[in-house]
């Protein structure tokens, strides 16, 4: 076995090794720590890109790589699975991680200890959750991810962070217990933890076993729904994401997607063969939750009084849209949902970084003044005439302004960027349901998808005007390239997604085509043979 064959495990081992080396190094050797972190992130990016290329080279529903940890044949050992979906998610993670990390170098790493180590550990958890094909192992990686996220959320300490952080921890601990109960039930039903094995086992299950499996999957789904922030399990999100330091909040935008991703995987486990997408009742439930989430997120956006909350709520809205796309069940809808997943993760990540920069251009008291002025304007008060000569904007402020506009366009799904393409493809998918005619709730979904964009526009307009246009002057933005570049990188990726929508969507369609045959994939996973021992070779 050459190194290339160990690629699937590298997204886990690289950040872990980096984190542990970082733990050995004194906090004072900051430069070394930065170097190690960045090198690790870049290597992960390269590995993930290679994996995407590899995954896309497979013709049928079989996975690109099945990595047997400990060389035990499935389902007895733990298995890592690289298919188009997991490779894509890995790439998305590393593409987001690199700018967040670079952004942190500018200032945020220094407000507490262990930032770089915890950051790499978060990557271990996220990457592992994407890669593993074993339910209990998924739990383990969830725990790594969550434990690291606790640390990162509390990074910088302070009253607000501790308060929100402890709530975040409590909710996640409870949902972890629920996760464990679910895994236990599924194990009791199927006698296995290997997802592929469970998938195959469903066809030969007794009544009791299948009921237990379903109960387990349902309970497990609750844990995933907490993570993906579905209403009413999302109260914790806006506050905790709002208090986290910018690079952490940006990185957290992938975490709800881990929940959604796990739901995708769980779906493939419990679905009976010859009945894909199947699970009509579950899909209806999920659709209901998704629409409620979207509805409350739309209202939440309107009610948001600051950008952080707005960004947090928009994550919830994106969950609503993702789950709606998922429960529509058609391949087109899944592909559209995945495309939306890419866009919303990058855009919200960029938004969190940007908000941090924007908060610095505000002058003391400017906020209060802006709100007052707004109130006067709303009451139709006539303000003193100002002369008709425009105010010149310094280049740095112009950059921030343009980035804000692009971010807003992406998040609200306005034309012409990729957010729009995502919503458009979802609309098309909604109008082409799997079976039968367009129902009333399809119309409701369309209204909600469009409406959530609109409330986003209204709120971003209000907040943007308050930030950029009302104040007479701004604090001179000290825009460092190390902070501007990450924002620019994320936004340009979204623009690339717009221009290259065809190829990207092609990849996603192939992804969904693979997901549509979970039983074929599962059999392929189980067929993976361990490396023979020397005796066996002889």
């Amino acid at each position, binding site marked *: 076995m050459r190194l290339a064959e160990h690629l699937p495990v590298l997204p886990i081992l690289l950040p872990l090794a980096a984190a*542990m080396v970082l733990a*050995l190094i004194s906090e004072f050797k900051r430069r070394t720590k930065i170097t190690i972190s960045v090198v690790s992130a870049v290597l992960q990016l390269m590995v993930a890109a290679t994996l995407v290329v590899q995954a896309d080279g497979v013709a049928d529903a079989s996975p690109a790589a099945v990595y047997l*940890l*400990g060389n*035990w044949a499935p389902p*007895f*050992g*733990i298995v890592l699975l690289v298919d188009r979906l997991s490779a894509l998610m890995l790439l998305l993670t590393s593409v987001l991680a690199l700018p967040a990390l670079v952004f942190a170098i500018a200032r945020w790493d220094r407000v507490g*200890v*262990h930032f770089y180590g915890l950051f790499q*550990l978060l990557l*271990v958890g996220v990457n592992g959750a994407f890669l593993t094909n074993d339910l209990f*192992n998924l739990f383990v990686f969830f*725990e*790594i991810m969550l434990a*690291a996220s606790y640390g990162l959320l*509390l990074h910088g300490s302070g009253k607000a962070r501790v308060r*929100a952080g402890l*709530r975040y921890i409590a*909710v996640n601990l*409870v949902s972890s217990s629920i996760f464990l*109960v679910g895994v236990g*039930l599924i194990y*009791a039903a199927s*006698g296995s933890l290997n997802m592929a094995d469970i998938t195959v086992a469903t066809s030969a299950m007794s009544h*009791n*076993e*299948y*009921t*237990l499996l*379903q*109960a387990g999957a*349902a*309970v497990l789904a*609750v844990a995933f729904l907490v993570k993906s922030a579905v209403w*009413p*399990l999302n*109260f914790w999100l806006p*506050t905790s994401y709002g208090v986290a330091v910018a690079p952490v909040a940006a990185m957290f935008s992938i975490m709800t997607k881990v929940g959604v991703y796990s739901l995708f995987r769980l779906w493939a486990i419990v679905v009976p063969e010859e009945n894909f997408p199947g699970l009509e009742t579950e899909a209806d439930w999920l659709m209901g939750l998704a629409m409620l989430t979207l509805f*409350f997120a739309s209202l*939440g*956006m*309107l*009610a948001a009084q600051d950008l952080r909350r707005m960004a947090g709520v928009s994550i919830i809205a994106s969950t609503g849209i993702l789950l709606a796309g998922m429960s529509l069940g058609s391949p*087109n809808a899944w592909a559209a949902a995945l495309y939306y997943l890419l866009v919303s993760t990058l855009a919200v990540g960029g938004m969190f970084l940007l908000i941090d920069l924007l908060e610095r251009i505000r002058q003391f008291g400017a906020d209060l003044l802006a709100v007052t002025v707004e109130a006067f304007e*709303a009451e139709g008060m006539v303000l003193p005439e100002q002369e008709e000569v*425009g*105010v*010149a904007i310094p280049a740095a402020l112009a950059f921030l302004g343009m980035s804000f506009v692009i971010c807003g366009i992406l998040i609200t799904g306005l*034309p*012409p960027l990729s957010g729009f393409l995502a919503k*458009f493809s979802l609309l098309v998918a909604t*109008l*082409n349901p799997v079976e039968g005619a367009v129902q009333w709730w399809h119309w409701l979904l369309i209204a909600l998808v469009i409406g959530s*964009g*609109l409330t986003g526009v209204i709120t971003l*307009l*209000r907040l943007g005007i308050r930030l950029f*246009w009302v104040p007479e002057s701004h604090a001179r933005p000290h825009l460092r390239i190390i902070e501007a570049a990450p924002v620019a990188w994320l936004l340009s990726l979204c623009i690339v997604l717009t221009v290259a929508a065809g190829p990207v969507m092609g990849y996603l369609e192939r992804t969904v085509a693979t997901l549509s045959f979970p039983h074929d994939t599962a059999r392929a996973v189980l067929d993976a043979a361990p*490396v023979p021992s020397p005796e066996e070779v002889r």
Partner: protein
Amino acid sequence: MWLMLIVLLPFLGSLCVAFLPSNSKNWEAWLAGLVAAASTVITLCYFPTIASNEVATLRYEWLPTYGLNFSLRMDGFAWLFSLLVSGIGILVVLYARYYLSEKDPIPRFFAFFLAFMGAMLGIVLSGNVIQMALFWELTSLVSFMLIGYWHHRADARRGARMSLIVTATGGLCLLVGLVLMGHVVGSYELSDILSSGDVLREHSWYLAILVLVALGALTKSAQFPFHFWLPRAMAAPTPVSAYLHSATMVKAGVFLLMRFWPVLAGTEAWSYIIGFAGLITLVMGAFVAIFQQDLKGLLAYSTISHLGLITLLLGMGTPLAAVAALFHVLNHATFKASLFMAAGIIDHESGTRDLRQLTGLRKLMPITATLAMVAAAAMAGVPLLNGFLSKEMFFAEAAGFGSGNTWLPTLAVIAGALSVVYSLRFITEVFFGPVPSGELPKTPKEPPRWMRFPIEMLVVLCIVVGTMPGVTVAPALNLAVHHMLGAYTPEYSVQIWHGFNLPLLMSVLAFGFGLVLYFLLQRRYGISRLDKVPLLHRLDGQREFERVLLAVTSFAVRVEEKLTSERLQPQLFWLLLVTLVVGGLTVWRSPIEAVRSPIGFEPMFAVLWIVGGVCAVAAAYQAKHHRLAALILMSATGIVVSLTFALFSAPDLALTQAAVEVVTTVLILLGLRWLPKRLTPDVTGVKATLRDYRRRIRDGLLAVAIGLGMAATTYMVLMSAGPTKLTDFFIQHALPEGGGTNVVNVILVDFRGFDTFGEITVLGVVALTIYALLRRFRPAPESIELPAQRLGDIKNVAPWQLARRGYLAIPAIYFRALMPVLVLLALYFLYRGHNLPGGGFVAGLTLTVALVLQYMVSGTLWIEAKLRIRPHQWLGSGILLALLTGVGAWLFGYPFLTSHTAVVNLPLLGELHLPSAFLFDIGVFALVVGASSLLLIALAHQSLRSHRRHFSGKPPTLRKRGAMRWS
């Protein structure tokens, strides 16, 4: 490719301009002008192609599976609009070059201007309707930037925001409408849609599509009831108004109606929706325009009115009316652009736009005055000017609409009369009357030669078209009409003289009434002194808009307050409730059939579990009142669990569980001291209300339900025999392939070694997190006091003194002696782990217990001065060792964590079987030691920090050997 350039050039130009320095005024203008000129010239070059009835197309695949292509399509109709947009663009650039002040940020203006032009050309030339919607929203966005160009002014901000919200909402409706349209037709390509009129009109979604498309068009074209944003948008610099509100933005709405006229028009619903919106807007706009005191306000309302006229014509649904509409679009664009520019010049030169102040400018700026008067005359529909021609066509259509109706011609004449009135007002009040003597902010004079040039061009156009329509506009108009209406193209002729007929009579009547009305209003009514519009001033669209926006926002805030909460309790309540419901429903849907019956009864075991259960319930009950008791009770439950493992022949788990219980309980006990005291009701004076009791009962019931649910679930699992595939395999293969007789340990370090690997990582992360959190953490002031339990024995001894010399001197000696024993025990557990109960985890915990004891009895500083623990190093190297062990398998060509057994012959110990799993276990051991000692240190140094201020006396100076580096 050239087609692409028409749309692409403005965007490229926009980018270039944006990066020019702000003081290179002429460069930007030149660049913008050249771009506009280039687009115009390319459009003109397409004339031969278009004239031969060809359609130029260009298509790139963009999102092919969803039917979205980047597709450009130029037919005669699009060609005409493209020419209009780019041609007037050149003139506005020239005008803006002189209009904007030196101090204005010029690059921003021209960048957005060009982007707007590009977006507008994009709408016009789109061959794919989704792409059209895309450019449509882009015009809304860019116009927001243009209207808010002077964003330091409140009216600009408000106007920009309102126009964006209104037009963007309409745009989203349009998008849905177009998606539906494409769904019905089966293609989003414009050419396919244009050829499927019958399919669309007969489809059950027709009405929805019509309403949605109409919402898009009517908001954009400022039609009633969405007209209110347009006057507010006048806060924009005049070049912007001249461009947006004459030839482009507002024309996009009517362009859309025209584009889809062949497929959507001709039904009753179309006539009602479009026709009535147009009619109301036509009359209302004209009426309100009369009473404006702001020059640009007058032009804004007249624009609304003229757009209403066009919409009405389209709504009539007859091909001839559509021709008239198209013609009027051209005419309106020319005279309205020139009027806006003239208004801008007047504003620029005199410093005001107030009609009450302006007077007699004819003498001071004669050329501009003449030009503006000609343009205004065209607006009023004076013969020999272009406005007259299309108005005649309108009158003809109105007269011929339906059979024997009189109300439409009457309203048409009234609207015509009103337009005469506001045109007259514009002319007489600005240019006639006494020459202003000092009351104007500036003394007006003629503007620079080239600033006036665009107006001259447009006015010449008005006259040329008005006098010689047959040779000037007719060929282009014919082409456009042919492509717009397709098979519906009617016979018509554009000429000045149609003979004495009804339309002419109506024109004469309109002029007559208009003149009379104007003088009546002027003399009797004192129109110049009015500051609000009679009758209609209550109908304030803007106020309603703000009110609705506010209502929606406050509704959102209320809902959010009611239905979400930042507090933990409601979140946990929902979480558990959802779990209960979801799990319960699944089982309820297909109930479990128990297949086994309980076997036997073990009294000892039952007693054990009753004890454990009671402890657990009691712990839950005490959790709120007495934390220490709750903690002890919880650990009792833990011991019961540990005993259960032992009973069920899992000594490994029992040992680990016991060790974990000990260490966690001790660590929590150490931390417990820093939690704030519970405030009882007699301290706070807050009594529990009935609501509180209700909530507690509710929560209690949920907790009981969850508990019962878990119990029932467990029972279900136990009663249905599950598959034992994995278990059998593990038992069979532990020794032959895993190389260990202790199955549990082999599972942990080999079969599922990756899980263990992950779990020790979790432990490491948690330790790092807690350390990071507690490192600089100061306890709350109220918990700094020594707890009551400790006040008796050690009064006035500062904690660092305790920390230096220890808390209990005699036990300290014993424990020091015990230390080597414990270390040895830990090593023993580590060594035998693979075959007998033990392993790295237990070994690590054992060593931790030894360390905890030393810290507690000997004092933090004492022990740290003697023994330097490096938790980070233990932790890091532990995981790294495990990792490297796993990676070691790569050298032999096996996947990560594949175990190997090396047989080594050591001189003293003889032949040793060293499985790689053993190295892995050492890693686990080191990690556990590192993580738990890190926690210990973080907690131990709490008391050192917190008391520094509290006690008088010298703080510790024990810095040697790094003992204080944790504080």
